[in-house]
């Protein structure tokens, strides 16, 4: 069995040799010295096929290689956010392209983002830019009520979120786990708009009326498709994607209680201590540009541009937005999640 011995020895040597290129630690607490040929590393929670197309376009235009670390439906944006936190002493990522805004605001407050005001964002309204330049927002997704028009008539669907807690929908409403994803921000928005008492009462009503807690927004849509729920709280893009297979799905832009819908934008930010800041800035310039936002609007997600002129050019409408600012909603995040956990996940 000499051959077997040789084989094992060979495998061990090759394994060790293959690991050697990885042994290039930087000084403790500092980022590694970046190589000019290194790709710019983006933590990205935007849908993978679309992100790929955008990065390919950027690479074609700039000649800078992009290496995305995409989230999974299991991990969602929060998974990447926690990774940025974990790596704070030695950041690996250069930029963060999030499919939502609230986690980005929290990262900014924790001092994990670097200020950068992209020149290409000059035409973006101020509501969608951080005052210190820590993030820039583009492409909006709405929080909506999804239903199957083959089973539920549009007139029956509540026009406001508060209607979901009515007795007639007992056991027929699905929402994603409120600790994660955009549902987290949505719950916080009720605390910001309605005050903690009314928001908590609404959550209690949902619990008492046996609301179904699903694994994520796309799982909410699946609950509606399967007929386990009649109404679901989800994002517009999840409905657009599901409609490709289930055309009878429809949605309602539900009223937050102030006459508007909660619209959640994508956000782009530079990571503090990024190993490749110059390349990352060029990527951010591209992502938040009108061209980048147009790509996002034309994608399967159908994000609504924040730029009014672009909306007009693409013929997209933005139903009225709610009155609470993103910063106000982020202020209520911790309290809202804690209360939602106690009530809905007890």
């Amino acid at each position, binding site marked *: 069995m000499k051959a077997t011995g040789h084989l094992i020895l060979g495998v061990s040597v090759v394994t060790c040799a293959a690991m050697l290129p990885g042994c290039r630690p930087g000084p403790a607490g500092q980022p590694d010295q970046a190589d000019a040929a290194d790709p710019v590393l983006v933590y990205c929670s935007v849908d993978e096929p679309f992100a790929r197309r955008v990065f390919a376009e950027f690479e074609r235009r700039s000649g800078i290689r992009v290496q995305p670390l995409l989230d999974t439906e*299991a991990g969602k944006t929060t998974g990447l956010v926690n990774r940025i936190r974990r790596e704070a*002493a030695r950041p690996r990522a250069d930029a963060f392209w999030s499919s939502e805004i609230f986690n980005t605001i929290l990262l900014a407050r924790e001092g994990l983002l670097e200020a950068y005001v992209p020149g290409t964002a000059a035409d973006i309204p101020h509501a969608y830019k951080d005052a210190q330049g820590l993030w820039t927002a583009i492409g909006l997704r709405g929080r909506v009520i999804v239903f199957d028009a083959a089973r539920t008539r549009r007139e029956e669907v509540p026009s406001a979120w508060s209607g979901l807690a009515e007795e007639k929908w007992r056991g027929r409403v699905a929402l994603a786990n409120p600790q994660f994803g955009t549902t987290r921000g949505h719950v916080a928005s009720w605390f910001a708009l309605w005050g903690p008492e009314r928001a908590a009462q609404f959550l209690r009503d949902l619990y008492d009326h046996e609301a179904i807690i699903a694994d994520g927004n796309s799982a909410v849509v699946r609950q509606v498709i399967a007929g386990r729920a009649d109404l679901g709280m989800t994002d517009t893009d999840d409905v657009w994607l599901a409609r490709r*297979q289930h055309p009878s799905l429809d949605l309602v832009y539900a009223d937050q209680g102030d006459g508007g819908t909660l619209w959640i934008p994508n956000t782009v930010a530079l990571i503090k201590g990024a190993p490749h800041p110059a390349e990352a800035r060029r990527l951010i310039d591209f992502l938040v540009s009108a061209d980048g936002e147009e790509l996002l609007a034309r994608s399967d997600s159908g994000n609504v541009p924040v730029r009014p002129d672009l909306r007009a050019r693409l013929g997209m409408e933005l139903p009225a937005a709610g009155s609470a600012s993103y910063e106000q909603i982020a202020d209520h995040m911790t309290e809202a999640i804690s209360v939602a956990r106690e009530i809905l996940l007890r």
Partner: protein
Amino acid sequence: MIARIGYALFRWGGAGVFVLALLYPFAAVVWTCLADGTAPADGWGFTERQLSLAGTTLKLALPAAGLGLLLALPVAGALGAGRRSGRQCLLWGLVVCPLLLPPNVLAFGWARLFAGLGWTPPDELLCIWSWASWLWPVPAALVGTGWAAAGRAAYESALLDSSRWRAFAAAALPALGGHLLAAAGIMLVLCCADYNVPHACNLQVYATELLAWATNYSAPVNVLWRSVPLVALLVLLALGAWACWRRWRAASSVTDMSLSLREVRGWPAWCVGLLLVVGPQIGLLSHLESPAAFAVLGRTYGLEITASLGLALAGGLVAILTGLAASTWSRLARLGAVLLLVVGFLPGALFGKALATGYVHCPPVYDHWPILVLAYVGRFAWIGVLAGWLTRDAGTAELERTARLEGAGPEQVFWRVRVGLHWPVLVCAWLAAGGLCLSELPAASQVALPQYGLLSMILMEKFHRFEEQMVVTMSLALQLLPLSAALLLVGILGRDPGKR
């Protein structure tokens, strides 16, 4: 000389990987929890919801294990009855196949097959059926082995003075009790720790919730503490299965699987086996709009497919070698091998969190492929341990003793007898571990690397995005390679059975 150096390297290398993949990450995660001093986000108690999810997990896993046992019986009977022949090798190949397939892919396949037949099963039923159709080979192999070793002889003796059913109930069943319980225990453990199938069936179980906790909370105490009920359950089940197995081994002195007293009808075994392997493929193929979809898949995800396969094969190989090395350790150090078994039953989310916490300040591991390989090793080295123990106890003890009496060193006995004579078992174990690595998601998602897009994650993303053709082609592609490897193995095994 080379054999001796290779043996030493192999054993010490195994010990090194054991420390890197298991001891250090868990020490780091416990240390971090103590240093943080923080409590879990929702306190130290367990909520009604968490207990209810644990209950749901058991409610799904128990019938899946029962159904798996039932499905396995015809194949087990045929496996335990026949001589070692080309047809028998093919049957073994059929048994190995489902274990090589990603379990979520089986769920996708069955869902589409049933839909094609005009029936949409409830999610729970689909989950139970998918688990059973994934894990039936475990009881088939264990019970088949037991049937050949003891059950059949007891049954034949009892047949002399009683009817078939009475003989089976009074003699064969008690002789097979240990095998049945051990098989049920292993299936329960695998079902309870599985994330893929419930997720693919739109169900929430404890493992799905745990991954959400691991991903969404920075402090590792959240996932560590929340893992306790699942880990306790899994360890109990694993210990039960282990005790059953030991009891059987002590009671049975016959280990020759080539006994052939009377031919058992093979066709039910073939029908059941083929249906369970081919069914999901038919379901997926019936939803394939055009073979050109494979070209699109190759163009879009060629790199990811290559990287996933390479990492799965590498991870599976290192996992098997580590487990095999652990099985050669001395009596005291066997505790390490038992630890590998126990850790293999830990929820993947906890394991991934431990690795991420342990290696975040160690760039050579954290930033590169070794962290993914360590994740695979921790999760699947138990297969190597079992394979190692199987090669040790596979009826060649006498040969080993003779070799030692004639002056052979432990390294020569190891290479020539354990590896040399049982390499098909080890290759099977490698393929099975590789197949599981390919579909591993909870641990890999915690330590994902931008350089290596993993198919297991992309497939789930496609599922969530309702990209039907991608789900179908990716599922078929994920099965094509393990099935080809299994067929190749069967070909090698069946070529000249007389030699083994």
